[in-house]
């Protein structure tokens, strides 16, 4: 029985190693395309790896670079945003996202206060916010529990416990805001170079405003293959979902 289990584990490990080697070779092939200036091919190869279920910040970063060089500004910004969700403190990702955003024409949420707050909160991933808040929460309760068990420690631990409670409160507030944004606020990145937001989710609805590739818009609703978006200046319109990518999708 033990021998069967060992064989099964070995098979799993070998299969995992083969898959990892395959992904790494695909990744290297995409990098070669990029080095040769075949940015469209590189982007397609990166996308194929992503579709296989492999996701990493570096993979999304390279995908964003290839899309940017291929002239697909919307795809590039979407990839950079997904990469920044995985590695929010990565300076390269932030630099390239900022660089790509500077190329975007027309309305975008770039300068809205909401996006600035979201940017500040995205300094940590949602799981990092959760872990930080949980650690502070445990430490605060641990200190108060210790003071109950050993009343003689109260005078020494009281100050630290209060600091920890304050820290836990702040981190929980940050976690709540980050979770609220993560679960309720979606961003649509415009993929088409030019798109027209319409007054309703119909092809013959009246034109409302024009947006360009890479514009980041707040998602208000999704219905029948259309996405209702707001440009942050009070203008609302519907775009076909084939023209946008709704994030987060990690």
């Amino acid at each position, binding site marked *: 029985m033990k021998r069967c289990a060992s064989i099964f584990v070995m098979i799993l490990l070998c299969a995992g190693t083969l898959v990892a080697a395959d992904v790494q070779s695909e990744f290297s092939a995409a990098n070669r395309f990029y080095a040769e200036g075949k940015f469209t091919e590189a982007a397609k190869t990166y996308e194929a790896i992503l579709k296989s279920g492999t*996701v990493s910040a570096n993979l999304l970063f*390279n995908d964003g670079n290839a899309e940017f060089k291929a002239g697909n500004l919307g795809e590039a910004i979407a990839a950079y945003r997904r990469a920044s969700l995985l590695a929010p403190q990565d300076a*390269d990702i932030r630099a390239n996202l900022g660089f790509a955003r500077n190329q975007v024409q027309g309305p975008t949420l770039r300068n809205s206060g909401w996006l600035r707050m979201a940017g500040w909160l995205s300094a940590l991933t*949602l*799981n990092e916010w959760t*872990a930080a808040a*949980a650690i502070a929460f445990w430490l605060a309760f641990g200190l108060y529990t210790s003071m*109950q*068990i050993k009343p003689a420690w109260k005078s020494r631990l009281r100050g630290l416990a209060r600091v920890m409670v304050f820290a836990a409160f702040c981190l929980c507030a940050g976690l709540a805001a980050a979770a609220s944004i993560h679960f309720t606020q979606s961003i649509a990145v415009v993929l088409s170079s030019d798109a027209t937001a319409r007054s309703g989710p119909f092809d013959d609805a009246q034109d409302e405003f024009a947006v360009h590739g890479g514009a980041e818009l707040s998602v208000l609703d999704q219905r029948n293959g259309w996405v209702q978006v707001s440009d942050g200046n009070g203008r609302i319109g519907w775009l076909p979902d084939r023209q946008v990518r709704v994030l987060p999708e990690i």
Partner: protein
Amino acid sequence: MGIRQMSYVNQRCGLNSRAARLCRPAMKIHFIAALCLIASLAAQAADFTASLDRDSISLGESATLSLTFQGGQPGNVPTPDVPGLQIVGTGNSSSISFNNGQMSSVVTVTFSVTPQRTGTFTIPPMVADIGGQQIRTAPLQLTVSAPGAATSAQIYSGSQVAFMRLSLPQNKVYPGEVVSGQLQICFRDDVQNEGNFQFTGMPADGFTVGKMAQGGTERTRIGNRVYTVIPVSVALTATRAGTLKFGPVSANVVVVMNGGRNWGPFGGFFGGEQKQISLASDVAAVQSLPLPTQNVPANFNGAVGDYSMTVTAGPTNVAVGDPVTVRVQISGRGDIDSLLLPDQPDWKNFKIFAPTSKTDLSDDLGDEGSKVFEEIVTPDDAGVRELPPFSFSFFDPNDGRYHTLTQPPIPLVVRSAGATPSPTILAARQPEGQAPQDIVSIRENLGALAQAGRPLIVRPAFAALQSIPVLAFLAALVWRKRTDNLANNPRLRRRRAVAQLVARRLEDLNRFAAENKSDEFFAALFHVLQEQLGERLDCPAISITQADVDGRLAAMGAAPDTLNSLRELFQACDQARYAPVQTSQELSALALKFKKTAAELQALKA
């Protein structure tokens, strides 16, 4: 009143129900009047005429053809069909007039006549049936000429409602140079509004016509009239040497003239008359000089204008075969969009990929701005130490000379392909406050794979885990309360201590009974009885007397059996001092009795 006239204009009119109800009495009156009039008109003489509002127009303008029926309603309205003329009905009107008891009826049908080519056209006679009479019109002639520029005399006389002037600001150009053609579209001060402006012809011989930009409108006096002048600039790129011509530029525009209200079919919202006008400008010519053939730089590739250049490259620390992005920005004035990156013959040790480019034009005409080229190069060997100088040459038409811009070499660190790459972060290399010139290059490693799955915060196991510190704290709190309670209540503390003592002594009693140690048994029994009673009566154990037991225990509600059992136990202890030897069974029975009695005492309320 000598003349009373009623006019009915046939128009599409949408009435709501309220308006329709209000109109009904008036309609009845009109209907009755019409019946009477038709009867009287039957005897009137019938006539049918056709007329043009003018017999000579320019190509692009329209004339109005009017068919007038007098003396009755026409049985048919003929529509002329003339090749080369587009004739479209625009409306009809009818009027009935009374003059000194004599009535006359006139029905007028109008057509818009738009020529499709120049020439002389004849509108043939038309026949209409009015009251049974067949009436024929005379043929009409319309002469259509090519649009021509207004003469100075016409302009200064103020007879032109609108005209167009063209000028070129330079008298010499070079092939590849961009010049700005200046068009002025002028409307006389009695033009109330203009619209539907459309260029119909913009011939250019030796020029490529580029973007157009409209300038600010201004008013100026020309001759004895004031005109509104709309300047339009046209970007023209010379394509060859020799005499180049631009024009005549032709256009159509519809103007609304000031004047009395006209509610006819062409009456506008403001009451002015609408006119379609053809405009044409003069021909502007300029001499194009050939580019000098002397001192032509080796890498000159046709750029004409006035330019500056910046070149950056990154990353500069690479392995053999790694990409280095060379970014060349050429800014200035000229045909920016058609600029090409020149070949660099000195870049022999690099593999060069086709560049991408992006044009950013800063003016509406598109002759000023910058073009950014991005070229990927990869060093072929580790001996490469620099990116060689980059040069770009152009011909400046302002001074008639060639210029060459050269960027100094850019140092490179090129490792062999197997060397460990050092991390390069472009963003970190950017000086403070300076915007990055390009994106940071790709990563060589896949990096840590992201864990799929829902965020921690929505996982039930994680939420359940967070209850542990809370529960631990609550448990510690309860424990602390109980401990403090005990510390502050001596009777409770004594009760617990005695209960524990009783439990321990019971074990001793059973053991002494089993071992038949009578002396130790009764010593222990007497001690534990005193402790239990002292605790119950809240007094020192050694001060317990028989009277206390009987009196105070009875007052606390002790059962008579319990009291009797206590007496028996005390008596047994007293007797044991004199006759200590008893059997093991008797000692066990006493131990059992003590256990029962102690339990009953502990149940009493203190």
